[in-house]
């Protein structure tokens, strides 16, 4: 008797599984959820691409870039994804190793600083990690990573955990690239300034905007959101002398998707102005290709680092675990 509601439900759900087979002219893209959110780029991208291709573009969203890669790994050759959009350069080595991705076709011109060479993955936007601070409570923001590490421990920063979060991993790599073997010592010092280490970016940014700490690890592009949407210049990114670590977001065609002609069409579309125009004010990142119209002037006010830092994907894949362990023992003391 008691199990009946569940059986009914299961039956209903099973029935809904037997949805109609894929129609012709359909492209399936796996991405992360903030891309497909109603305020994200997804809805506009879908409309713009469908207008060009006369096809049906379907987004499937998972939590974030890491979940995205795991999802594709889990599905393997049976994946329904034609394109996976939303990995970053810290994940591409792992993604490449799966053998589930195919080389891309012709794409448009790219404007990513430092150039881009990859036969599989194509960037669609980028930004830099940065310490974002509250100008009303922090009068002397750090001017370098060294400033941040050695500064007044009573002025706190909220950071993310590299075990669970992409920006957290970004800061780890940033410190590693600047400090090299001295990274553990730097972390031991920085630890004094760290208010707390959150599992993801959302929690830390929430604490920051609540006023718990005057600084948070975020992106150089974060202030653009506040300037454009909230009409406030209260939050600014601090420019660091050592340069800023980059996050480049990429998409790749799966081996399954390489048989779908729409995949190639989308990759070309992705690097064209029609797509790139949408990115800045929906994904709050910088366009990776030429745009059709100038960006909102707020973007000119952002920090544009003189030097961009980035480690090779293979290096990240090889040493990530070791460096995270190093971070753990430095931060746990």
């Amino acid at each position: 008797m008691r199990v009946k509601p569940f059986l009914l439900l299961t039956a209903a759900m099973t029935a809904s599984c037997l949805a109609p087979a894929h129609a012709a002219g359909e492209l399936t893209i796996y991405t992360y959820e903030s891309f497909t959110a109603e305020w994200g780029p997804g809805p506009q991208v879908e409309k713009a691409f469908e207008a060009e291709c006369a096809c049906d573009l379907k987004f499937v969203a998972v939590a974030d870039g890491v979940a995205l890669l795991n999802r594709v790994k889990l599905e393997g050759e049976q994946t329904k994804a034609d394109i996976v959009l939303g990995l970053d350069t810290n994940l591409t080595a792992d993604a490449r190793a799966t053998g589930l991705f195919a080389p891309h076709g012709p794409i448009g011109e790219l404007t990513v600083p430092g150039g881009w060479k990859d036969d599989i993955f194509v960037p669609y936007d980028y930004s830099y990690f940065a310490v974002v601070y509250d100008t009303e409570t922090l009068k002397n923001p750090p001017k370098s990573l060294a400033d941040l590490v050695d500064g007044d421990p009573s002025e706190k920063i909220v950071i993310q955990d590299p075990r669970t979060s992409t920006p957290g991993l970004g800061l780890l790599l940033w410190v590693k690239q600047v400090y090299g073997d001295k990274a553990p010592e730097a972390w031991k010092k920085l630890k004094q300034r760290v208010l707390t280490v959150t599992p993801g970016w959302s929690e830390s940014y929430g604490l920051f905007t609540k006023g718990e700490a005057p600084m948070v690890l975020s992106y150089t592009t974060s202030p653009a959101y506040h300037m454009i949407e909230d009409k406030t210049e209260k939050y600014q990114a601090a420019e660091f002398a050592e340069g800023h670590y980059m996050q480049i977001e990429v998409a790749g065609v799966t081996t399954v998707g390489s048989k779908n002609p729409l995949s190639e069409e989308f990759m070309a579309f992705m690097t064209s102005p029609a797509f790139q125009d949408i990115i800045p004010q929906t994904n709050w990142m910088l366009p990776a290709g030429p745009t059709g119209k100038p960006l909102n002037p707020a973007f000119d006010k952002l920090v544009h680092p003189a030097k961009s830092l980035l480690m090779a994907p293979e290096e990240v894949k090889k040493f990530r675990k070791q460096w995270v362990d190093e971070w753990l023992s430095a931060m746990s003391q």
Partner: protein
Amino acid sequence: MRQSGSVLAAKLALAFAAIVVGGAFLGLGIDAVRDPEGAVEAFDVYLLRAAGFTLWQAALSALLSVAPAILVARALNRHPGFAGRRLLIRLFAIPLSLPAIVAALGVIGLLGRAGYLAPVLSSLTGERWPGIYGLSGILIAHAFFNLPLATRLFLQSLETVPQDQWRLASQLGMGPAASFRLIEWPAMRAALPGIAGLVFMLCVTSFTIVLTLGGGPSATTLEVAIYQALRFDFDPARAVTLTIVQLLLTAAMVWLLSRLGAELTGEAALSVSSRRYQSIGPAEKVFNMVILVLAALFVAGPLLAILVSGLQADLAKLAARASVQRAAMTSVVLASLAALLAVGLAWALAAGRQKLASARRSHAAGLLERAMDNGAVFILVIPPLVIGSGWFLLLRHTADVFALAPVMVVAVNALMALPFALRAIRPAFDAAAVQNDRLCVQLGIEGWTRLRLIDWPVLRRAIFTAGLFAMALSLGDLGVIALFGSDTVQTLPYLLLSSMGSYRTADAAGIALLLGMLCFALTLLSDMFGREARQ
């Protein structure tokens, strides 16, 4: 016939739980066997430290939630008529329905470095208030979640004490100490291991609160390690091993806790009066009121902080948004289904256990009976991500996993809520069975008639409370959805996190408030439908 029927139903309920958990382990296990290295490597210093911290913080959190809850529940039970009592009890249902990050921000809104109380605390301590980051923050946030829950569950067990006992106590002139020792404590002690175990487990698996308020990676729990194993290092063998370690450690603790409890001996006399006979002295009155005011402040404080920051959002506009309405609908539908399933399962388990218990008379409880009582509770310490990933691995080749997402959400939420539902239903069910079983057999009342005439009227209150717990819990949950592809199941917490993840903090605060209000409305409904017939 009836006896074997209810035992069979309970066995089916257990089987359902076993399938959901077993399927997940099977899915991960098949993958783990291919690459078993992680299982061996899992046993390192890191694991040892994480396990140690997990047990330590969970034990402290449980103690700090359960011990005060005994006093609060008793005070509430002693004063059945003061103004604001029902409001307080209703407020106590809300924390359960809040996603961890909302609760954490609520607690911080009050006690953080920039919290409302920070200026007061700064002037008290003479230096800038450092906030509550570290173990203290974890404990306070866990107590905010669990003290109200434990209070409501204790209250539930106190309410099964027959009114005649109170009358007798009054006639014998028992003071507060004697009536606590002879009446209240035995009732609560029977429920203590279950409630303490429940709270302990909720704290074992706490993830967001531990990391966000913990202050750094020295506050690492096993749950964090499991999550880590399934994310960047996608390593099922390690994840399964860690989950089993977590399960075994918790089982050991729960076993220890069960030694604290005592079996409740049934009270066979029927209540002849619903009037409360008791006299409470002025000293006790003051003591109880102090306890209640403190508890109310402790729970209402962070809720107020959530209310204040929620009101800064444009609530009307938010509520008018199609995505919010859709998410609210999805949340309510999924939570209702989960609650229905949870209550059904809990009823089946309570009935089956009671049958077995009454059949065995005096010798010790068998394994099956104990499994029906406490077995389902262990699902709480299996991370939703493990269940999600395991089933995903198992089903990926055979079924459309996206389409199964709602089924998974309902099944897992129902199982997560089952221990709560069981805690709420079992005391009332057992008490009713002891009172009515023989009479019903003599009079030949059984089946539907018995349900309608005898069981439903005395159990409806417990059932609606159980359903409320289950709904509240499911409303706030977003565990299994993450991996399954979330477009199919966009719930309110999902929308909340998604807003938070895109700079929309004001919207997120507004949605948190809507979620809290939704839960409050549910408690009103639950109270309305669950009102006892005889009143």
